[in-house]
């Protein structure tokens, strides 16, 4: 699977982008507020200074007189290091100050305070202009005070503030990104937990997921459950199909076999009996082969995803022996159990089927009224199951020969079998990290099968 990116990264990035956007926005807002505030402050100071100057204008002997108030200029210098320009003009005549400061601008009416943003000596200026009427002799003369300041101060103040705002925004952004990572982790935790919960399940566990999960995950869990349900359904259907098919094939076989056996019971002639026996045998051969093939397939499937439960091998041996007891009883064969508690990790169903196949062989190939010993013990870090019979032995055949698919001994042709039993057993044991070894019984007649498994 090729992941198309990580949700966490995507979430972190998009949240970080949002944070960046917000930071930028807040920064630009603060910066523009700062600029406006600084501009307003400058305007206020300019207006105050200009007012003080205007108030200082008086007339003396019909002449307009002015001593620039020191405070007005000191005030301008106190706030910022801005260059100052001024002009006092009365009725078109420049009284004092910078002559061409107000060129192109019409003096405001009396009482009016006007702010202008202009340029003088190639630098941008903020200028306040106000006109005051002074009585010079008989005449009322309008005197216009124009006071201007460069705008570096606002720039500096606004710059300082916007720098502070920028630093704060960056800090906010960094914090937001850190938090974002954390939040992404936190929000994705339920998803990870869900994934782990599903991953922990056994190969056949298709029960619906029932977990407390955030509402956003409900659709996912819902579809997961629907999917599992469908999967379970189709698994069930295919299982049902196989079961149905087996049923359909085997029930008539069972009918024929039962009827043949009944007929065998009543048959008189040796030939009839012989024919019926052959028929029954053929049925047994084919149904045994079919059964073992199916078992082999199931085992191979289960091995792919091996469960690892703790299994007490003594209990396992006892239950398998009990299941085969009636079969052994038919031949008056006694199964002797000798077990000590050893545990291994593995799939119970598979280990059962391995042991059943081995024990089935022992019973099948042993003569009547013999004994089979089944011992469970341990050697080093391996658990060991030993099945010994008093049958004909292996006639020199090796374990590798006998565990091959469909491999059957030359001496057992009269016994029904498919040659898959030991294949199944050895595959199961190998999958569990163990093995199977077949040998003639060293203490006399018969064969011994030794199954080894790592201890739990």
């Amino acid at each position, binding site marked *: 699977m090729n992941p198309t990116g990580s949700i966490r990264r995507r979430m972190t990035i998009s949240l970080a982008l949002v944070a960046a956007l917000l930071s930028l926005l807040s920064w630009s807002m603060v910066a523009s507020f700062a600029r406006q505030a600084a501009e307003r402050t400058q305007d206020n100071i300019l207006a105050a200074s200009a007012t003080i100057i205007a108030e200082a204008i008086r007339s003396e002997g019909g002449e307009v007189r002015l001593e620039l108030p020191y405070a007005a200029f000191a005030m301008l210098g106190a706030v910022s290091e801005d260059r100052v320009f001024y002009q006092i003009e009365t009725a078109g005549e420049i009284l004092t100050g910078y002559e061409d400061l107000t060129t192109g601008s019409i003096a405001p009416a009396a009482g009016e305070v006007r702010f202008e943003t202009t340029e003088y000596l190639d630098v941008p200026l903020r200028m306040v202009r106000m006109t005051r009427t002074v009585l010079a002799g008989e005449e009322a003369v309008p005197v216009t005070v124009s006071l201007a300041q460069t705008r570096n101060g606002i720039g500096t103040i606004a710059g300082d503030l916007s720098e502070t705002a920028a630093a704060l925004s960056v800090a906010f952004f960094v914090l937001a990104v850190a938090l974002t990572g954390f939040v992404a982790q936190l929000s994705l935790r339920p998803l990870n937990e869900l994934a782990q919960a599903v991953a922990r399940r056994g190969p056949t566990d298709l029960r619906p997921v029932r977990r407390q999960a955030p509402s956003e995950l409900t659709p996912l869990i819902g579809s997961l459950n629907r999917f599992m349900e469908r999967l379970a359904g189709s698994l069930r259907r295919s*299982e049902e199909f*196989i*079961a*149905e098919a*087996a*049923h*359909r*094939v*085997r*029930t*008539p*076989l*069972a*009918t*024929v*076999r*039962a*009827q043949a*056996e*009944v007929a*065998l*019971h009543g048959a008189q002639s040796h030939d009839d009996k012989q024919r*019926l*026996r052959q028929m*029954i*045998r053929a*049925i*047994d051969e084919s*149904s045994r082969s079919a*059964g*073992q093939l*199916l*078992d082999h397939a*199931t*085992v191979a499937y*289960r091995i792919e995803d091996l469960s690892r439960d703790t299994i007490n091998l003594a209990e396992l041996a006892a239950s398998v022996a009990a*299941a085969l*007891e*009636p*079969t052994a*009883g*038919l031949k*008056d064969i006694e199964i002797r159990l000798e077990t000590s508690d050893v545990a291994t990790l593995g799939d119970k*169903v*598979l280990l*059962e*089927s391995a042991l059943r196949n081995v024990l089935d062989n022992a019973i099948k190939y042993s003569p*009547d*009224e013999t004994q089979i010993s089944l011992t469970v013990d341990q050697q080093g870090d391996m658990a060991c199951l030993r099945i010994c019979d008093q049958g004909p032995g292996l006639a020199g055949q090796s374990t590798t020969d006998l565990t091959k698919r469909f491999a059957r001994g030359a001496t057992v042709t*009269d016994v029904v079998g498919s040659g898959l039993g030991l294949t199944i057993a050895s595959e199961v044991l190998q999958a569990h990290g163990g093995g199977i070894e077949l040998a003639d019984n060293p203490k006399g007649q018969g064969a011994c099968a030794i199954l080894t498994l790592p201890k739990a």
Partner: protein
Amino acid sequence: MRYLLVEDHAELAGAVVQRLEIDGHAVDHAPDLATASACLSAAEYDLILLDVMLPDGDGREFLAASRDRIATPVIMLTARSQVSDRVGALDQGADDYITKPFDFAELEARCRAVIRRRGGSARNEIALGKAVFDLTSGQLRERDMTIEFRNRELRLLEVFARRPGQILSKAQLMDRLFSYDSDVTENAIEVYVARLRKKLAATSVRIETVRGLGYRVEIA
């Protein structure tokens, strides 16, 4: 013993019933789960042989649903020898299972084993004169004696006990004792009869040889 066979396949059921009756059992046959339920509420059984696939449902589900109502031991008849199928059957409360097609001797052995494991009822005793033959435990009791038998001896005695006074041929006995394809001669029967006689020597039960025909049980 009284068996309930739940099997929808008429021919198979017929053959099984026929075969079990030969062995002296009483068998009721139910072709579906509904009939089986009716039978179970009308009579008591020693054992139920229950097919998995039935026209009106799954035998396993039926068993799981009615396990607490029915104390009778159950052997499932399944078409699959599959590993998972077996586990399924036992999980649902069956005592044992047998795969189709099955060997009657094997079926009988499993039935006996299941019944014995569950402990039978008083009805499963056959009186042989002063002796009592307990089919469930496979013991013969007379006075203060209790005699135990090996598997084949037991089956031989059971055949005799169900047909007291009746002459049974060696061929008939062979079918009961040996698998259809085991290569034994009629002499093998003589060996087991001799063993049985030896065990019964102290009791009032006698096995008589009817020359040229076979054997029969005599109660002194």
